[in-house]
């Protein structure tokens, strides 16, 4: 071997050693952080779909983000409406369409659907599509979720590296940080599959003292194109439901008074736009569901137990008015 090739050989060996180290780091991160957790918050989606499939009579299905998880007493609605209730809501970051996609394959004539999306999912582009990191977590915890998600599996290595690979790396690192920080706080104890009841409502927070609400900076006025997109998703869903003999109702989400003050113009614009473009039944107005901060558990959308009961009773009444 020529003596001048030695530095190159040395360089390649070092490079390979470095790559091996990175592969080892990836394996360690994967081994210690990427394990399926049967009690994961997102894994509850499996139970919700099971309930939806198992019910034989007339069903009332609630679709939305976590506002429906916290603020819903499905038993109260069931008792008032005599419909078997399924709360399919889970997480705002799964996007506007996700709960709709979950429901549609199981839709049956005679069902009632109550759409109750968060304002963010209607007015923020990234939220509307859904957060890929959260959807990735969902498929990890509940692999069947893939059939309800619009994302396609990567077709090439480049696509994998550009998208899914990055998400995996993000997940591994973020979980490692949490593990290092020993994050096992009260909130993490709440956000678990075991905190849900059989209807799909979160009940774990009933016994926990409400904490400080997550900081909220107000919703900026949305662009018309975004509202158009929201309206088109809702209309498409409503039409598909209509074809299957399903009625669609719309309810504005519960929202904290303090946050409403900063978001009033955006919310008002959204309401006007939706009422004009989406010809479905509106059960209430945004102002009907505004509560003061002490009525919420940990965020401006998450009602505490007692207020959730009030909200559910009112919702049940308004559903009955339109029956």
């Amino acid at each position, binding site marked *: 071997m020529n003596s001048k090739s030695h*530095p*190159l050989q*040395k360089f390649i060996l070092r490079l390979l050693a470095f790559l091996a180290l990175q592969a080892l780091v990836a394996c360690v991160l994967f081994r210690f952080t990427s394990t399926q957790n049967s009690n994961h918050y997102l894994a509850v989606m499996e139970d919700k779909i099971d309930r939806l499939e198992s019910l034989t009579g007339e069903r009332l299905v609630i679709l939305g983000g976590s506002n429906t998880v916290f603020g819903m007493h499905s038993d109260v609605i069931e008792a008032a409406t005599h419909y078997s209730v399924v709360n399919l809501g889970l997480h705002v970051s799964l996007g506007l369409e996700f709960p709709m996609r979950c429901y549609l394959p199981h839709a049956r004539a005679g069902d009632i659907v109550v759409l109750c999306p968060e304002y963010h999912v209607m007015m923020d582009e990234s939220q509307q599509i859904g957060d890929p*990191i959260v959807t990735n977590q969902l498929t990890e915890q509940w692999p069947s979720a893939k059939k309800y998600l619009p994302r396609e599996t990567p077709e090439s290595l480049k696509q994998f590296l550009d998208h899914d690979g*990055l998400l995996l790396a*993000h997940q591994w*690192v973020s979980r490692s940080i949490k593990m290092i920080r020993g994050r096992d706080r009260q909130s993490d104890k709440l956000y678990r599959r075991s905190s849900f009841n059989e209807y799909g409502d979160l009940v774990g927070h009933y016994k926990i003292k409400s904490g400080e609400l997550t900081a909220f900076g107000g919703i900026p006025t949305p662009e018309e194109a975004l509202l158009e997109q929201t309206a088109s998703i809702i209309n498409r869903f409503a039409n598909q439901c209509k074809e299957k003999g399903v009625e669609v109702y719309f309810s504005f989400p519960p929202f904290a008074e303090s946050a409403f003050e900063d978001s009033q113009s955006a919310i008002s614009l959204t309401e006007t736009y939706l009422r004009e473009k989406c010809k479905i039944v509106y059960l209430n107005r945004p102002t009907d569901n505004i509560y003061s901060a002490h009525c919420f558990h940990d965020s401006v959308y998450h009602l505490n137990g007692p207020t959730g009961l009030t909200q559910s009773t009112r919702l049940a009444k308004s559903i009955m008015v339109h029956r």
Partner: protein
Amino acid sequence: MENLIQLTSQFGWSPNLNTLSIILPLGISFYTFQTLGYTIDVFRKKIPAATSLVQYLAFVSFFPQLVAGPIERAQAMLPQFSRRRYFDFEKASDGSRQILWGFFKKIVIADRLAIAVNPVFEDPTLYSGPHLMMASVFFAFQIYCDFSAYSDIAIGTARLFNIQLSKNFSYPYFSQSINEFWRRWHISLSFWFRDYIYIPLGGSRKGPTRRRFNLLVTFLISGLWHGAAWRFVAWGVFSGLAVGVSTTQSKLIAMGVEYTPKQSTHHRNQVIETKSSDPVTVGGEAFLPHPATLLRIYSTFAIICVAWILFRANSLEDAWFIYRQIARDLINAEAYRDLIQLMNVDHYQRKTACILLAFVCWEWIFRRDPYPFQLKRVSALPRWTLYTLLIWGGLYLMARTGTGEFVYFEF
């Protein structure tokens, strides 16, 4: 490209963007500088004409720096292509480190800052003076981390082939005068303009008034090169005037008890005549800067930020609005309180500010090195740990922020 379409449409010809992409391929403005420089140097008999077509083409189209520089000189590059090359372990290792540092700056800092900056400049009317000020500072670092990252990646890649490209950035934001800033910012372009525009115009040989005029013309052309828009013209004029004023001021300072001149003789054709008054180490030798040094660095940076507003704003009207809003809220305590409140709420902005602060401290600590990630005095274990942290930290943040194109790809 858009500028050219705009220009040609004035003469009744509206070329198709796809056609122009073929006629005017990637990196055309950068290799035009190189080929122009080569032609002028050969004409002036400063260098002999290249005798090998392959070497000449390699010089013109050397891939690492083809798209956004550094703009290389034939006299530095051609000999490197003509000599026999061998693989140099040290240079290749150092080059790899520089590439990693470049990617880190681009992905972790520049792209993160872009998310905070873009909405503000899209509609500045929605923001208070302090917020606009913060966005301007963020943009100053965004463009620095973005552009210098590209240069780091280009220089590092070239070093893998044992080719030495010229340094393009040298801790510009620690400069103590506007003159010094322009010797540390986009060095290859500044010196190209010096050698091929400023000096042929007469440089500083024809008195102070003519020198200032020459500076103004040089910066005006530099502004126009960035785009056919009034804001770039204004940016060029502002920079030219700032350098002119700074030259006079630096001369006055040099007469006092300020930093010791590095050399006693001045090159008669330097764009910035006070080069000799630059400290040997940017920002001074002391680990902690003297308050006067800090004040000079701060004022220089503030002036640069004023210029960057012209550069980044969508129009001259927007830039004017930003200036007025900043001036109006300068002593408005309420506006500052709102910004602090927003920072308390907005974790993203707060984290971005923290990352930026850490970056500035890192650069300050390692400002004696050619780039701040050389880690010469660090042993292998902490170095590899740091590389690993940088890679995984970058991947972690990239999934959230995504990656944008390099800012200077549009020029």
